[in-house]
């Protein structure tokens, strides 16, 4: 027994010594940046002019993206009512890029927005607080790619079915390795606190013991809260309120019985990661890792994926960029069925493209005919 004890102690000492002998690496964890993909925020085709903002100024961005969808749920028009709240006293000269077709002053604005090719401009002086609000009409064909939801509306016999899917999914590589449980517990608690408070993650790192591997691909999505209704003429609307992601399905269906053209109206906003960050059987992760044996590998994966989900959610809080990188940004996406009336410019562009193709085909055919005719004439001359 004594020998067994001695062997056990020796093994523990050896394991501790071996761990101490392995190199330690501090690895930066995901968040608050970089974002997982380049867009959103939307970007335009022109280089932005120099942006100037007095250091004392802070700008918060509040956006409502209005998406008009057709009878099948496809986006046909996208605009963004962006409201910037400038706090502090001083000068500002701001430029926001994007596939911008036009801008108009929105209700409550204390200044008029300027427009250049793919740029929304604000310039002036803030006496302490200033509201800059604009309705920004964006090019649908570009902006629609970066909306967080895909809708599909279809009729199936006597029912209209709406499918709502999370479109924020993106593949990402995960780190794997050995991190001590107490540190993982602390980091998960920090991440959970930030998520529940609705604030941006702060940069942090984990201490890896031994090698760090980055070989596993996972799919990351922003959790989204989706609330709305599906309606048929003369029928009571079917209301829904779901979370997509955060350990729940990434899509859902709603159906309504009846005839006529279905109409959908819903709001989606990036949500907190709640479910995946709930500590099992304890009030905190620090307590949970003390209470029961938890797999460090699983906890590390949870920490990495939930932080990436929060980064992804934060990314969709800025459909148009906030000129203040540290400013608080909020975006609500509102989808609504609209009568399909393609934008004249979009129609013109499409027609123009078609004409070009037709012109090229005609030119090629004409050239061939002319060359052939010439050849025949030459052969007979």
């Amino acid at each position: 027994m004594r020998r067994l004890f001695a062997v056990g102690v020796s093994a523990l000492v050896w394991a501790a010594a071996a761990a101490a002998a392995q190199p330690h690496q501090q690895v930066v964890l995901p968040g608050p940046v970089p974002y997982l993909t380049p867009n959103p925020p939307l970007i335009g085709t022109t280089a932005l002019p120099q942006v100037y903002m007095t250091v004392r100024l802070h700008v918060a961005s509040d956006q409502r993206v209005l998406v008009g969808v057709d009878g099948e749920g496809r986006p046909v028009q996208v605009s963004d009512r962006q409201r910037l709240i400038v706090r502090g006293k001083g000068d500002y000269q701001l430029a926001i890029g994007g596939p911008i077709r036009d801008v108009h002053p929105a209700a409550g604005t204390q200044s008029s927005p300027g427009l250049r090719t793919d740029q929304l401009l604000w310039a002036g002086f803030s006496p302490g607080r200033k509201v800059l609000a604009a309705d920004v009409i964006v090019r649908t064909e570009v902006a629609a790619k970066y909306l967080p939801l895909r809708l599909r509306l279809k009729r199936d016999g006597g029912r209209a079915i709406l499918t709502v899917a999370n479109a924020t999914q993106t593949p990402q590589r995960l780190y794997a390795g050995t991190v001590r449980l107490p540190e993982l517990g602390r980091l998960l608690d920090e991440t959970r606190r930030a998520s529940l408070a609705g604030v941006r993650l702060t940069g942090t790192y984990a201490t890896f013991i031994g090698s760090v591997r980055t070989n596993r691909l996972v799919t990351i999505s922003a959790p989204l809260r989706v609330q709305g209704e599906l309606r048929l003429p003369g029928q009571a609307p079917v209301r829904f309120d779901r979370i997509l992601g955060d350990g729940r399905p990434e899509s859902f269906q709603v159906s309504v019985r009846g005839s006529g053209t279905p109409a959908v109206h819903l709001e989606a906003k990036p949500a907190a990661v709640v479910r995946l960050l709930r500590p099992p059987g304890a009030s905190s992760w620090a307590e949970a890792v003390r209470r029961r044996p938890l797999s460090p590998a699983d906890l590390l994966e949870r920490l990495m994926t939930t932080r990436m989900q929060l980064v992804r959610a934060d990314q969709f809080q800025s459909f148009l960029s906030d000129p203040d990188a540290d400013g608080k940004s909020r975006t609500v996406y509102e989808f609504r069925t609209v009568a399909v009336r393609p934008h004249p410019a979009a129609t013109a562009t499409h027609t123009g493209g078609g004409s070009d193709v037709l012109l090229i085909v005609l030119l090629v055919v004409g050239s061939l005919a002319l060359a052939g005719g010439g050849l025949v004439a030459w052969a007979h001359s």
Partner: protein
Amino acid sequence: MRRTVVVLAGLALLVSGCGKSGRASGGDVVVAVDVPVTGSPYVAETIRHGVALATSGINSGGGLIIGTHSYHLRIKLYDNHLSARKAVEDMRSALSAGAVAIVTDGTGVDATWQIANQKHVPICIVYDGGSGLVDVAKRPNVFRIAPTNHGIAFRYAEYLIPKGLKIGLLHDDSAYGQEGSADINRAFSQNPRSVALRMTLPAEATDLSPQILRARRSGATALLVWAQPPTIAEVLTAARSLGWSVPVYTPPTGADPFVRQRLADHPSWVDGLTFAGSRLTAEVGTAPFESFQSQYESTYGADKVGVRTAEGKQVVQPPELAMYAYDFAHVLTAALTRAGSLDPAKVLSALNQVTTQGANGDERGFNQHSHEGVVDDDVYFARFHDMTYAPVKDDPLSSTLPAIPQTR
């Protein structure tokens, strides 16, 4: 011998490669300046100087570069005599001379913009802030770098209404006064209690005592006078002669040297006169404007007001209007370069897209929705004391601005 020839030929090639510019000369590019040389000489001269200072700087730096050619900017001066009819004649002459743009104080733009627009030639107003003059939808070729009446009126409402004053809104019957009056009425329409009376003053009158007496009896505790410089001088003369120390507020015309010249014998009557203008300095400080002012004065001399301070120092006028004209010349050059052509339509389109650094350090440019180069937020207030002025301290923007030296 053959080796020597080769070496000499090589040297010759090297020397030719070290020339100032390899670009071919494209000739002259004409910028027309149409200003009231005989109607308002100070305004005319300072605008002309502003454009000339910019173009001479560009010319001496290698000229205007468009593609593979270098062009020399040439100014053609026209005198509109403050007459719309003469401005139309000038416009036709300028277009015949091939002008790529017209810089004007604003005289006759209501009549000239269509003539210029037929050839897509841009007009830039650098003095008149009249609201109807610039209209992106109706007048796509008209731009402005000067504070707008609209901006000044609304900034005055924002500044004066919280003071709880009973304001007499006076304007003269000149076109300038009537246009400004419309904007002032709009700005104060939400707060009629702040207005003690509205009154039109005859612009040619030499004694406004009856009108000012009436304003005093209306209970006015402040006067906002939107008028030409002679009327402002007459209002001050009448009020102070009556022993009425009412605060007087004016648009930028209050800073015109004429007011101080007229009241040179009574400097104390000018004290307290407050005018609105566009800030001369940017957040970066006074250095860029002072550098521009020094460049201006070394070329043309200081614009002397013709009055002295109590200490006997000569008072000079900061070259504000010259700055606007100077900035437009630079924005125009940037647009020409961006357009890569002298095609007026391309230049007009490029004017909506370019930005340059203005003489005061601020960014200067226009855009598709606003052909205004001065934003309303940049309107500040300054008050006279001892024949010079300094930004007021009771307005958030103005209180952040430094005073510009005005004595020599």
